[in-house]
C-alpha cells in the first residue's frame, strides 16, 4: 500500500512538472525563453519516473535502464540547450521555415 502511494505521488509530480513545462514552452514568446522550460522536464521529471519504477522494481533491468535514462538526460540535455541557445543568439533560423537557396560564391580575381 505504501509502495503504491509512493508510485502515485511520484508519477503525479512528474506529470505535473511536464505539464507546466509544456505550458511554459507554449506560452513564451521566443525560443530563448522557451529553452528555460526544458530544464525541469529533462532534469527533474526523469528522476521522479525512475523513482517510481524503482519503488516497484528495485534493481532489475527496468530499474537500471530507468536510472540510466535519467542520468543520460541530466547530462546531455544542457548540452543541447546550450547549442540551441547559441544558434538562437546568432540569429540563425529564427524566422525561416526552410533554408534559403545557396548563393553562388564570387571568384576573387587576382
Amino acid at each position, binding site marked *: 500500500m505504501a509502495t503504491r502511494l509512493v508510485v502515485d505521488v511520484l508519477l503525479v509530480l512528474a506529470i505535473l512538472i511536464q505539464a507546466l513545462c509544456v505550458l511554459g*514552452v507554449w506560452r513564451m514568446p521566443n*525560443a530563448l525563453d522557451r529553452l528555460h522550460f526544458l530544464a525541469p522536464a529533462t532534469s527533474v521529471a526523469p528522476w521522479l519516473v525512475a523513482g*517510481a*519504477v524503482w519503488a516497484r522494481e528495485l534493481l532489475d533491468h527496468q530499474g537500471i535502464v530507468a536510472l540510466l535514462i535519467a542520468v543520460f538526460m541530466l547530462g546531455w*540535455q544542457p548540452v543541447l540547450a546550450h547549442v*540551441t541557445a547559441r544558434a538562437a543568439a546568432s540569429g540563425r533560423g529564427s524566422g525561416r521555415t526552410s533554408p534559403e537557396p545557396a548563393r553562388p560564391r564570387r571568384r576573387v580575381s587576382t
Partner: protein
Amino acid sequence: MNAFLWAATAMLALLVPCGLLAVRGSILDRVVALQLGSAIGTMALLVMAEGFHRSIYVDLALVFGLSSFVATFAIVHYLERWA
C-alpha cells in the same frame, strides 16, 4: 489500468501541444518543441514498459532517447551553419 498506464496516457496527451508548436513556430521553436517532445516521449515509453510489464519498451526508451539526442544535435548544428 494501473497508475503507470494513466501516467503514460497523460504524457502522450502532453505530446499534442509539442506537436502543434512543432508545426506552427519558427525553426528554433520547432527544435525546442522537438526536444521537449522527445523527452516526454522517452518518459512515456518508460512508464508504458512498467505499465504493460514489457521490458523491451525500456530498451526502446533508451534507444529513442539516444537517437533523439543525436538527431537534435545534428539539426541544431545544421541550423548554426546556415549563412
